[in-house]
Each structure stands twice: as structure tokens, then as C-alpha cells.
């Protein structure tokens, strides 16, 4: 069954099950969805975390930027990517929460004010400017299992409150045939607009949904463009996390945590815990490659350390 037909069938099913206490099944990401945070965590029958602090953006003004390089490998310019990502966010911003109301946040495309993002790294700087950046990975996929991953969203949050501090999205244009055309224009591979609409949901704090026709459903098949538009489950999710009557400061000029910069924090600014210790607010910090550590010495140290670990364990 195609997704369009499936949507129709599910709409009927949903109408017939209005009396159900839980007809929808969206999940909000919580602090329990982070690796290693299993203490006191639990999931319900839909796989949603039921413990931990729900993740959300506290501000009513959110921002994003698109890395300037776009994807030459997939013939996607920065302008095209920026347009598609803006359209994807617009889906969420304009969701109908009832009575003509919309979720209580707005999205700002900082590229339009400051120019495209220069930084092409996933970063969260605890003491230096930041940016929520969308970037393509043309040259390599920096993680394993490249053939199994379309895109990766990294959401950084404050553990005590669940407040989202930063979100960066990497799109696997290296290994994945990403396309931007409509089906009427030619073959569709992994549809960029579908991918970024889904990843935008993660950016905003939604986890995967078990509802089959939801944009936040885990399963995506190349050629499918139905993720471009939201389902009732997606709308319910975004309106629940950001209810229209939520009290937020008036939306004027958005600013990421610790200010905004189009540039990566430099290696010299980085402290041992991965955060930049200083930086200039604005667009003044030059991009630098981070050092990768001392290879041979680290290899030797690692081997020795793990041998010690094993011996300790063996004698317990």
C-alpha cells in the first residue's frame, strides 16, 4: 500500500477510533533518549520515553542556518537547500493547533540576515557563540554504517530542565542519492524535503512516532515524498510541545545560546570537555580544524589501558 493510500485508510481508522484514549502516538524526546541515561528511564508500548525531562526550546524565537557549501555532489546549491529547509520548518510553524492557532514559536533563517553558515561542524560551545546548522556531508560520512543513515540530527540539551540548547543536522549526501525534484520532474531518490521535514521534527524535540503515516515515523523509503507534509499525529505532537497559549517572550531577534556565530569555534578556544572557553560574539571567530590527538601515543595508551581493564575484570 502506498503511503497516500495508507494515509486515507488511517484517516478512516482514526475517525472510527475517536473514543480511544490514545488515538495518536507521537513521542516527545526526553533526556532519557540520550545514550547512557538509563537510570530511572522507561518506555511505553509505543516506544516513547515516559521518564526524564521532555526536550523543548524555551524561546519563542528559534533560528537556523545552512552551511554555505550545499552539496555539489548532489547538485544542491546552498540557495536550494536553504529554500527547502525553510519550507520544511514552515510546515511545523504553520501547523493548525485549532481555532486558527499555531505552535508558539517562530523560525528565523539567519542566513538571510548574515549570510550562509561558514562552520561545517557539529558543535555546541558552552562559553562561545553557537548556531543551529544544517550541513551536507559530501566528502565522507564521519560515522560508521554510512549506507544505513540518511541524516543525523544532534540535539544538545540542558539535562536538569530538558531545554534544548542547540541542534545541528548532517545530511548524508556522500553515500545517499539525495534528490530535490518532484516525481513529475523525474526519478526521486531520497527526497531532501521529506528528509529535512522529518529532521526538523527532531530539531524541535519530537522523537519517532509509530503512526504509519506520520512524518515522524521511523521508516522512510526512497521515492516517497509524503514526509513533506505533516499528518494529524505530527500536528498533535508539535501543538502539544509548543501550545499556542504558552507564555514566551515576544519574538524579535533570535539568538542561539551564548550568541551567534557563522564560524566554528576555533580549536584554541576549546576546553578539554569539548566546549569553547572563549570567543567573540558575532561573526569574528575564524574557523580552524581541530587537532585529532596524538595518534601513535594514544594508540599505545589505549592498548595498555584496556589490557589493565581486562586484567582487573579477570581477577574479580
Amino acid at each position, binding site marked *: 500500500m502506498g503511503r497516500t493510500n495508507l494515509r486515507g485508510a488511517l484517516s478512516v481508522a482514526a475517525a472510527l477510533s475517536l473514543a480511544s484514549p490514545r488515538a495518536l502516538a507521537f513521542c516527545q*524526546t526526553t533526556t532519557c*533518549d*540520550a*545514550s*547512557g*541515561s*538509563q537510570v530511572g*528511564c522507561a518506555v511505553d508500548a509505543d516506544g516513547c520515553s515516559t521518564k526524564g525531562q521532555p*526536550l523543548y526550546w524555551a524561546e519563542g524565537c528559534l533560528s537556523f542556518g545552512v552551511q554555505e557549501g550545499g552539496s555539489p555532489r548532489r547538485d544542491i546549491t546552498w540557495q536550494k537547500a536553504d529554500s527547502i529547509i525553510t519550507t520544511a520548518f514552515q510546515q511545523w510553524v504553520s501547523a493548525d493547533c485549532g481555532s486558527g492557532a499555531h505552535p508558539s514559536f517562530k523560525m528565523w533563517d539567519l542566513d538571510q540576515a548574515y549570510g550562509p553558515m561558514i562552520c561545517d*561542524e557539529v*558543535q*555546541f560551545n*558552552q562559553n562561545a557563540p553557537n548556531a543551529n546548522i544544517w550541513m551536507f556531508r559530501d566528502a*565522507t560520512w564521519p*560515522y*560508521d*554504517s*554510512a*549506507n*544505513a*543513515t*540518511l541524516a*543525523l*540530527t*544532534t*540535539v*544538545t540539551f*540542558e*539535562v536538569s530542565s530538558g531545554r534544548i540548547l542547540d541542534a545541528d543536522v548532517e545530511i548524508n549526501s556522500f*553515500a*545517499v*542519492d539525495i534528490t530535490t525534484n518532484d516525481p513529475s520532474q523525474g526519478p526521486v531518490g531520497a527526497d531532501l524535503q521529506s528528509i529535512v521535514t*522529518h*529532521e526538523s521534527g*527532531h530539531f524541535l524535540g519530537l*522523537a*519517532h512516532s509509530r503512526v504509519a503515516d506520520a512524518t515522524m515515523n*521511523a*521508516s*522512510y*523509503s526512497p521515492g516517497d515524498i509524503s514526509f513533506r507534509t505533516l499528518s494529524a499525529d505530527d500536528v498533535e505532537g508539535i501543538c502539544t510541545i509548543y501550545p499556542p497559549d504558552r507564555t514566551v517572550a515576544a519574538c524579535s531577534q533570535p539568538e542561539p545560546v551564548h550568541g551567534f556565530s557563522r564560524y566554528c569555534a576555533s580549536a584554541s578556544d576549546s576546553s578539554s*570537555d*569539548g*566546549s569553547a572557553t572563549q570567543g567573540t560574539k558575532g561573526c569574528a571567530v575564524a574557523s580552524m580544524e*581541530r587537532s*585529532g*590527538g596524538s*595518534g601513535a*601515543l*594514544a*594508540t599505545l595508551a*589505549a*592498548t595498555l*589501558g*584496556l589490557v*589493565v*581493564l*581486562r586484567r*582487573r*575484570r579477570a581477577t574479580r
Partner: protein
Amino acid sequence: MLSRRSLLQGGIALAVGVAVTRRAEASVMRALTLSDLVNMSQYAFVGTPADAFSQWDTIGKQRRIVTYTLVDVHSSIDGRPTPTASVMLRTLGGISGNIGQVVPGEAMLRTGETAAMFVTTLSKDLYGVTGMSQGHYPLSTDGSRRLHAITNGLEMQAGPDAAVHRLDGRTVSEVEGLVFQELSRGTH
């Protein structure tokens, strides 16, 4: 005497240098079939995460929080015994101090939760879960030792041949049979 956690942290701190020098591998895009999963993995086993620790690391050029999990291996699924009785796995995301990172789709290894795992080598003595959540199947706790697929990733374009579909609900012994079938085809 050092605590187990101290030992784990010490080993992890020293392992970081290896991790950052690794190059990523890649091939084509598609959901992992069982054949993919078996052939991309160095080992497949049933194990239980015994301890875990998260910290900031550099993966590629990306400075991010990752979690190192020490897994006690109980039995092999594919007949290839791991070189040691316990192995270290690295997954993306985790919590360091009051800062946390979530990477939707990554395998969620929970301490004490026994699971079937397919792992690939990241560097010497360090492994990753093959295909993120596609390589991690917690076992049911009712004694039947059935695998439970957690299909929580956009990357999972799950058709009928997908590993998550072929393994979900199977017992460990049934999975061993399926894996041996794949290995006997001589593609590994």
C-alpha cells in the same frame, strides 16, 4: 582498589586517541538486510551492558558527546567468538555533566538489559553497533529469549528483507540458524 567505573573511565580516556584517528567507511544506501548486517559485522553475540560512561570526544571533526559501554558477552550468535569476554562499544549521544546530546536512531544500550548485538570494529578494542539501532535487539524478559527490534530510525527503509523484520520476534536459536545460513553462503 579501583572501582569498576574508575577502570572503565580510565580505559575510555586512553581509548579516545584511537577513536579519533579512525576513518569512516561507507557503501551504498539502503536498509540493512540480514545479509548486510551479518557481513558488515565483525561479531554477533548476546551480551549485557555492565557499565557505561559518556564524555566529549572528537569523531571525524565533530566534537560531540559519546557513550562508551562495557558489554559482557555471554554467547556468540555467529560462531565467531569475541577476542575477550567483554567488549567496549561506542554510541553517539550521552550525558556529560548538565549537558546531554540525543541522536535519534542510535542504539540505546541500557545497563543490565541483555540483547543480541551485531558490532563492527571502530578501532582496536573498540566497536560500534552495526547500523545503529538496526544492530541492537533487546531480548524479551519472559524467558523465551526472543529478539525485539527497535525500529526507531529514519534510516530504516524497512522492506521484508530488512534485518529488523527478519529478526524481530525470533528466538536466539532461530537467529543463530539464520545467521549461519547467511555465513554459509560464503559472502563473508
